[in-house]
Every structure is written in structure tokens, then in C-alpha cells.
């Protein structure tokens, strides 16, 4: 399948934006009290968000998890609003109620981020049901990690989506770690996607560092879903460069393992291919990087100069009209 220049440019931009955004967060985390709470990054895994979201239409929905930044940015969320939310500001996409871990951006159909591990799939089933109920040609993508695959809720959701042939794409980003546990310590089966057989749906294993391969597989799953053929479980093999959070010492993660996966970074892979094939020139690439750098710096400036919410704004939004 030929992938258009426009799509490739979109994916490269998305990869670079997510990486640059998280590099900035990594630095901000070093400043005491700058970022409240935890900071959980998807650095190194950006090809999944970039590739999957490039295969979606704007009306398609995503449900995401702890490592959401690349998903949200790839879906088109405003970097200013995300950055402000992460810093706890009133101008954040959720008025400072969410913080980094639960950002909902309904304006780009990122309807839910849940950081209850395994919480996303049952909700994605409900959103997919609504799409089917209204006979819309839309799909819902649910991003989970390899750790979440061991939650019972994920089984319930896969089973129900299969039984009702719901237009849901279950995306498992197998980054080889769940908290401090290596994949081999929490799962015996070599592939999460093999579980799809138990639900009589396709299970696909794809190189999660290859944005183009991710894009192709997501496009196939989307076609299947809108065709009424039901869900797909795709497992993207990738790697968690950072710890469970920025406070994580990663003592359990071998240094040479990290280095080996960093050598397979998704960005040079796509960038190299595009340069070699003349899809993008060195000049265009530099211009893209400069623009993205400005976008991220603007986001930080916007977030830093935004006010914190007043304390009693905490009472708002519990119920409609409250």
C-alpha cells in the first residue's frame, strides 16, 4: 500500500511534536514544585500514537491511558491546553482538575483518559456501542499497555466487543514493562495479541517503532470495524525508555536493553526513510523541527503565565451546572 506524502509528513510532525513536548516535560520535572503529581511519559513509543491516529478520521474516538501525550497530540489536542493542564493551570484543557494523568479533550474526540489500569476498554466498548447504535461510520480506539492486558476488565470488554461486533480497535502498546515488572515476569504468553483467538477476532503483532507499519495495521483494523466486522486486537512491540514515572530509578531495567531499544528509535527510522526517498528535504525537515520547537516553547510560556485556579473552583463540575 502506498502512503501519501501528506500522511508521512503528518506522522513525522506528530512524532517530533510528541518527543519535543516530552523532552520539555522531562526538564520541567527537574524543577521543584513545577509539575504537581506524577509525570508518566511515552518517550520512545511515539510511533504508536502517530501511526494509529494518522489512520483515524477526526470523528473517530480515542480512549487513552497513563502514557497519553503522543495519543492526544496526534489526535490534534492543543499543546497549550495540555501543557497548562499538566502545570495545574486554569487554562488547562480540564481547568486543572485532571493534571497530566486524566486529560479529556472532547473537542478532538479524545473522550477519555483513564489511569485505572484496564479502565479504558469497558468504556471504549460503550463508545463503540454508541457509534454502532447510531449507525455511524466511526470507530473507537482504546490504547492499553501490556500490564493492563492482565486486568479482568480487558477480558470482559474484548468479549463483549466481539459478541456485538463493535467498531473498537484495541491497541496494546507492549512496552515490555508494567510498573517495575518485566513482561516475562507478568505474562507467560509471548504475545498479548495471541489472546484475540479466544475472542474469535484478529490479533495482529506489529513493530511498534515503525510508524508506517503502525499506520497500515490501524487502517486495516479501521476498515474492518466500519465494515461491521467487529474489533481487532493489535499489539505493537515497543519499549518504555523512561520509568513508570519520572521519580522511578529504573534499577530493574538493564542499561544495555534501554540502549538497544533507543538505537531503534522510531524518529530516525521514519525521518531516514523520508529523506532517502526524497519525501522530505533537509531544509524542510529543519523548518519542521524549528516550528515544532516554537510550538512547544509557546505552550510552556502559555502555561507558565496562566493563572492557577482559585481554590473554590474545586467545587465546580461535580454535577452538571455545579
Amino acid at each position, binding site marked *: 500500500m502506498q502512503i501519501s506524502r501528506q500522511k508521512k509528513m503528518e506522522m513525522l510532525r506528530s512524532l517530533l511534536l510528541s518527543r519535543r513536548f516530552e523532552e520539555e516535560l522531562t526538564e520541567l520535572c527537574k524543577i521543584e514544585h513545577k509539575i504537581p503529581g506524577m509525570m508518566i511519559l511515552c518517550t520512545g513509543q511515539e510511533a504508536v500514537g502517530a501511526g494509529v491516529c494518522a489512520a483515524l478520521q477526526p470523528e473517530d*474516538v480515542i*480512549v487513552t491511558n497513563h502514557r497519553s501525550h503522543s495519543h492526544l497530540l496526534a489526535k490534534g489536542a492543543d499543546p497549550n491546553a495540555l501543557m497548562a493542564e499538566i502545570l495545574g493551570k486554569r487554562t*488547562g*484543557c*480540564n*481547568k*486543572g*482538575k*485532571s493534571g497530566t494523568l*486524566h486529560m*479529556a479533550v*472532547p*473537542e478532538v474526540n479524545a*473522550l*477519555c483518559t*483513564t489511569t*485505572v489500569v484496564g*479502565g479504558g*476498554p*469497558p*468504556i*471504549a*466498548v*460503550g*463508545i*463503540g*456501542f*454508541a*457509534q454502532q*447504535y*447510531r449507525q455511524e461510520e466511526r470507530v*473507537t480506539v482504546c490504547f492499553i499497555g501490556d500490564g493492563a492486558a492482565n486486568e*479482568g*476488565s480487558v477480558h*470482559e*470488554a474484548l*468479549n*463483549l466487543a466481539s*459478541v*456485538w461486533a463493535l467498531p473498537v480497535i484495541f491497541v496494546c502498546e507492549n512496552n515490555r514493562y508494567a510498573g517495575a515488572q518485566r513482561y516475562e515476569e507478568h505474562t507467560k504468553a509471548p504475545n498479548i495479541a495471541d489472546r484475540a483467538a479466544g475472542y474469535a477476532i484478529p490479533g495482529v503483532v506489529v513493530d511498534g517503532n515503525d510508524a508506517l507499519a503502525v499506520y497500515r495495521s490501524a487502517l486495516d483494523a479501521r476498515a474492518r470495524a466500519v465494515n461491521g466486522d467487529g474489533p481487532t486486537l493489535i499489539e505493537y512491540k515497543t519499549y518504555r525508555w523512561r520509568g513508570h514515572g519520572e521519580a522511578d530509578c529504573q534499577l530493574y531495567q538493564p542499561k544495555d536493553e534501554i540502549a538497544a531499544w533507543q538505537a531503534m528509535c522510531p524518529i530516525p527510522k521514519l525521518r531516514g526513510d523520508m529523506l532517502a526517498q526524497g519525501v522530505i528535504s533537509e531544509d524542510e525537515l529543519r523548518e519542521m523541527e524549528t516550528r515544532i520547537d516554537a510550538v512547544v516553547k509557546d505552550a510552556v510560556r502559555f502555561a507558565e503565565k496562566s493563572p492557577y485556579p482559585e481554590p473554590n473552583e474545586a467545587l*465546580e*463540575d*461535580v*454535577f*452538571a*451546572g455545579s
Partner: protein
Amino acid sequence: MQSFGMGQAINQALREEMLRDAGVFLAGEGVGVGIHSSPMLPTAGLLDAFGAGRVKDTPVSEAAIAGLAVGASVAGLRPVVEIMFNPFFTLASDMIVNHAAKLRYLSGGKSAFPLVVRIKSGAGFGAGCQHSHNLEAWAAHCPGLKVVMPSTPADAKGLLKSAIRDPDPVVFIEDMMLYFVPGPVPETDYLIPIGQADVKRQGNDVTVVTWSKMVGVALKAADQIAREGIDLEVVDLRTLVPMDKKTLIESVRKTGRLVVLHEATRTGGFAGEVAAVVMEAAFDHLKAPLRRVTGPDIPVPASPPLERFYIPSEDDLIAAVKEIVR
């Protein structure tokens, strides 16, 4: 006026709301084809009336049922899902407690979750503690959920219709014994506001605050004790969250005495909350210490005499009333 039990009243509310709003759908274990076919049950006949597209029998998967409601509601539908027995709420509770209740808040008010979780509850059918366990205080303790527990067929119809139209998640707890207790039900399309208590009996000596099946117990006790010249006022809270503190406090200010009655176990039960609200707002009006009449702190036992011992009775209430009326 038509007269039937709460099961049929709920059925009528569901039918009317499904006719009114194409976004309303039902899902749960056996809501379409169940093992019982009694017309007195809440979802009887709705599959035939609305088809399998809108009345969805699910696998035995409580987390998925509740997640279905969360996702479908944020995507713009009006789900009404059923949890077969209250103890199974624990299996659905992540989706209800961590998601339905919190996601509006987390979104800064951008997202809405207009869903109803109907939960069948109440002791009295001898099934034991994994099928009988009143957990309304759990739900009430969770900000972001509204909690409704009707006592009469008419209230159930009006409150369920309000719950379905409500923009927020509503936990609607139905005592199964009330499915079979007939009462008058208006045929019209009427709504009972969520958050409004109802004084089911006016009285001057003692306020009994209660809800759901225990309202009937309180009214029977009131008739009995009236013969001894003690006049009970029975306040049916109907909605635990939001609580109608005004009606509650006005009643206690009038009578000066309070007994809170519920079937759920005592420790951490919602009677404690009612009592605290009264102490904060009307302590000076109390002529005697308040009393709680509740289930004992035990799982609900199965054997008939044991289960009867568990469920608060008219005699239990009368004894408590007599302790504070001198």
C-alpha cells in the same frame, strides 16, 4: 388509577422514556430474555416492544455492563443498565466509582455522563449474603453519583423518569420485595424531582427518617403506635444524594425527636450521615437522643428466621421510639 407493584411501575417508566427518547437503551444480564417471565418484573416485555437493538442482553460481565454505560453516555446516548443484585455492584464499582462519578469532574465539566445504573437490592428472598447486601452508603459516599431509593410504585415511576433525563450518573436502587407490593400509579407522564424527600405521614411526636422498603415498615409501625397515642412523622428521603436536608430538618424541628431507619448494616451506614446532618442543624431542637434502627453488622443470612432477625421490623422501630418518648 392503575394499581400495581414497583416492578411494573419501573417497566412503565422505561417504556415511556424509550418511546420519548431514541437515545435511551437498556442493557444487563437478562433484561431481555430472563429466566423469569413474570409481567411484574421491571424489564418484562420490553425486548418484544423495542427489539434487540435497544434491549441488550449482555454476557455475565458487570465491569463491561457498567463500562458500556459510561462510554455510551459520554458518546451521547442515555443508557439504563441493570446490575442484577446489589453485591455485584462491587464488580461494577470501578466503572461507577472511578469513572462514572469522576470523569465529568476530571474533564473540567466538558464531558457528561447521563447514565442510570439500576440495582436490584434488598433482603427478604432467602438468597443469602452474596445476593442480598444493601450498599447504598457506598454509592452515597462517592461524590459525583446521585443515589435514589424509591419506596412506592408511583415514586419509582416518577423518579426513574427523572433519573433517565438527568444529566449526571444516577444509581437507582430498587428493593426487589417492592416489585410485588401494589400501589396507585398515575398514568400520566410525570416526574418526581431527584433530591426531594416526601413526608409520607404527618405526625407531631417523633420523626422517622427512612427510605425504600423500610418506609412501609415505618408506616405500619406508625399505625400501631398511634393506638398508644404516639404520633410518628414518616419522612421518606427517596434520594440519598442529593439529600433534602430542608424537609428533614424542618420535621425534626417540629417533632424534636428522630429515629433513622434503614435495612443496611449499621456501621458506616447512611443513618450516621442523616444523624450528623440533624445534629449540625437542629441539635437545639432535640428533646431526646436520636436513635438508629438498622440491620445488625452481619452479612445477610439465608435461613428464614435468621433473615427475619436481620431485617428491621415494626417492633424494632417501636422499641426505639419508646426509648426516646417519655
